[in-house]
C-alpha cells in the first residue's frame, strides 16, 4: 500500500493526515470527555450526547448571526461568547433532563440508554423543525482563517489548531476539576463507593446532577468548536455518537487519560488509513480493531483496578 511513494512524500502524507486526524481527535476528545465523566460517574450512557453537541453548535450559529447584525465591531470575539453561552445552555438543559428523567433511572442503566435515545430523536426533530434540514455553517472571524505553512507540502489550518487548543485546554480543565478540586474529590468518592460517600455526608444526588450538567455543558463547548471545522445539520451529532462511545469504552471508563489516548489512537488510525484505503474501509477497519481489542480486553485500555 506504500508503493509508489517516496519516503519524503510518505512523511508529508503522514504529517498531513496526522494533522487531519488531529482535528478529528479534537472533536473526539471534546465529545468523549463529557460522555466519559457522565459514564464514569453514573454508569449512564447518554445517547443524546451528540444532540447536546449540536445544541452547542446551533447556539454558536445564532450567536454569530447576532454579532453580525448588531455588534459587527466585536465580531472577531464572538466565538468566546458563543462558547460560554453554549456551555451554559447545554448545562442547564442537561440539569433539567437529569432532574426529569435520568435520576429516576439510575438503577436501570439499559433503560437510561433507551430513554436518552428517545430524547435524542425528539431533539433532532426539533432542530429540523426550527433550523431546517439543511446544514448551516458559521462565518469564521478573520483571524481564524488561513494556514501555517510548515514545509512545502505541509500546511496547518489555523481553525484546526484553534479547535485543538480548545480541546486540550478543556481536557486540562476537566483534569484539574476532577483531581484538584473539592467537587472532584466528591465525584471520585461517589464513583468509588456510593453508600460510603453518602454516609460521610456527600450529597450524591446533587453530585450526579452537577456531573450530568457538566458533561452536557462540555458537549455544548464541543459543538461550538465543531462549527469552526464543519457545518452543522440536525443529524450531525448522530454521525459521531458510535465513535465516541467506542472512544470512551476503549479508553476505559473513569479514566480521563485513557479517553484521550484512545481518542488519539482511533482518530489517527482512521485518518491515516483513509489516505490509502477508501474512507469506509478505513472506518470499518478501525472500528473492527477497536471492537476486537474490546472483546479481548473488555475493561478498556486504562481501567481502574477493581476486583470483580
Amino acid at each position: 500500500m506504500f508503493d509508489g511513494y517516496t519516503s519524503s512524500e510518505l512523511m508529508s502524507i503522514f504529517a498531513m493526515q496526522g494533522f487531519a486526524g488531529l482535528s478529528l481527535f479534537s472533536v473526539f476528545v471534546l465529545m468523549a470527555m463529557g460522555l466519559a465523566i457522565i459514564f464514569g460517574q453514573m454508569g449512564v450512557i447518554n445517547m443524546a450526547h451528540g444532540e447536546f453537541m449540536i445544541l452547542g453548535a446551533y447556539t454558536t450559529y445564532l450567536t454569530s448571526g447576532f454579532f453580525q447584525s448588531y455588534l459587527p465591531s466585536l465580531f472577531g470575539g464572538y466565538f468566546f461568547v458563543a462558547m460560554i453561552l453554549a456551555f451554559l445552555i447545554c448545562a442547564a438543559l442537561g440539569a433539567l433532563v437529569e432532574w426529569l428523567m435520568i435520576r429516576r433511572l439510575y438503577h436501570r442503566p439499559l433503560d437510561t440508554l433507551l430513554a436518552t435515545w428517545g430524547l435524542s430523536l425528539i431533539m433532532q426533530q426539533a432542530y429540523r423543525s426550527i433550523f431546517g434540514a439543511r446544514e448551516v455553517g458559521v462565518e469564521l472571524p478573520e483571524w481564524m482563517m488561513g494556514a501555517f505553512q510548515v514545509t512545502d507540502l505541509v500546511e496547518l489550518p489555523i481553525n484546526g489548531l484553534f479547535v485543538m487548543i480548545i480541546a486540550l485546554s478543556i481536557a486540562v480543565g476537566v483534569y484539574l476539576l476532577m483531581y484538584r478540586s473539592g467537587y472532584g474529590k466528591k465525584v471520585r468518592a461517589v464513583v468509588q463507593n456510593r453508600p460510603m460517600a453518602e454516609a460521610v455526608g456527600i450529597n450524591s444526588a446533587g453530585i450526579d446532577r452537577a456531573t450530568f450538567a457538566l458533561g452536557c455543558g462540555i458537549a455544548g463547548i464541543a459543538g461550538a468548536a465543531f462549527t469552526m471545522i464543519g457545518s452543522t445539520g440536525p443529524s450531525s451529532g448522530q454521525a459521531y455518537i458510535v465513535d465516541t462511545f467506542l472512544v470512551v469504552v476503549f479508553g476505559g471508563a473513569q479514566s480521563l487519560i485513557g479517553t484521550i489516548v484512545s481518542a488519539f489512537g482511533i482518530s489517527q488510525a482512521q485518518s491515516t488509513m483513509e489516505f490509502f484505503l477508501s474512507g469506509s474501509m478505513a472506518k470499518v477497519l478501525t472500528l473492527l480493531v477497536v471492537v476486537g481489542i474490546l472483546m479481548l480486553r473488555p475493561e478498556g485500555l486504562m481501567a481502574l483496578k477493581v476486583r470483580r
Partner: protein
Amino acid sequence: MKTPSKTPSIVNWFTSREGLYYLALAALLVVILPLALDPFRLNMVGKYLTYAFVAIGLVMCWGKAGILSLGQGVFFGLGGYCMAMFLKLEASTPEATAIQSTPGIPDFMDWNQLTELPWFWEPFHSFSFTLLAVIGVPMLLAFVIGFAMFTRRVGGVYFAIITQAIAAILTILIIGQQGYTGGVNGITDLQTLMGWDIRTDAARTTLYFVCVAMLFLCLFVARFVQNRKLGRILVAMNAQENRVRFSGYDVAAFKIFVFCLAAAFAGIGGALFTLIVGFMSPSFIGIVASIEMVIFCALGGRLSILGAVYGALLVNAAKSGFSESFPELWPFAMGALFIGVVLAFPNGLAGLYQSYVMPLEERLFKRKPKAEAQPVSEPEPTPEARKPAVEAKEAREYDPMIEHYSPEKS
C-alpha cells in the same frame, strides 16, 4: 417443536386461559386481518410481522435474560441478505442478464466492473443452503460475539455499545463494498422464488400466511424455552447473576444460547422480510433500525412474547400511519414512546394489561366462563396468563440491575 408442557392434551391447553390468548392472536392474524384488509395492506402487516420475530428474540434476550442487544438489525439483515442473495441469483440468469458485459451475475456487480461471481455468493445457488444460512449465519455471528463477550463477563451497557458498533460496522461495510453487496441501494429487483413469482397479490397473501405460521412456530419455541428450567435460569440470571453462577451454572453458556436464539429468530424474520417486501437494503440493519427494534419489544412488554408481537404491529402501524400524514411528527412520537415506555410503564402494554384488564377479566371469568373469548377484537396485547408466581413478583419489582446499587441484597 413440542406441544405445550404438562397439559394432558393440546385441546385442553387451547381452552386454558393462555391458550385462549394464543387463539385470540391467531384469530386476529389469520381471520380478521386478512378479511378486513386489501392485499396491499395485508402485505404491510406481513412486513410488520417480520419485525415481530426480532421482538420475540429480544424478549428472550433482553426481557428475560437482561442482555440488551442494540445490534439485532445485524442478524435481521444477515438473514435478509442471505435470502436476497438467493433470489438475486435466481433473477440473474444468463438469459435475463444478456445485455450485461458479463451475463449471469447480478446487475449491480456488472455495474461495478466485476467479471465473475464472488466466492461467497456461489453457495447461494442452492435453496437448501440458503435456508440453512438464514438461520446459521446470524447464529454463527451471535455465537462469536457472545462467546467473546460473555465468557469475559462483559454485559450491560458495554455489551449494548459493542453490539451497536457492530451494527455500524456492518452497515458501513455493506455500503462501502458496492460491487459485492449492492451498496446503499441494497439487493433489489427480486422476482421469483424457485420459479414462483413473489410479486403477485396471490403470492404475497400466501407469503403472509407463511409468515404467520413461522411466527407461531417461533412463539412456541420461545414459550417452550421460557417455561422450562432453562427459562427460569435465564430470569434468575437477570436478577442475580452471581448467585446463579455460584449455584454451579455456567452463566456465559446460557447467555450465549439465548443470544443465538434471538439471532436465529431475527434471521428468520429478515428472510421473510426480503420475501414479503421484495428487496433488502442496509437501511434495515443500521443503528437506528436496530434500536427501533428494541422499542417494539419494550412497548409490547419486555417480559411477554405475545406482547412483543402486538408491540411490533402497533409501532410499525403507527409509524406508517404517521409517516403518511404527519412525517415531521413521527420522531417526536417515537421519542416520547421511548421515554414513556421506560419511565411510565417499563413492562409495556403487557404489564398494563396484566394490572388493569386482567382483574376485569377475572371478574367476568367467574361469572360466565365463556366470556374469555372476547379479547379477540381488543387491540391490547395479551400476556401469557398463567405466569408463575416468581415471574409475577418479578414483574412487580422489576429491577434488572439490582445488584449494582443494593449491596445489602447480595
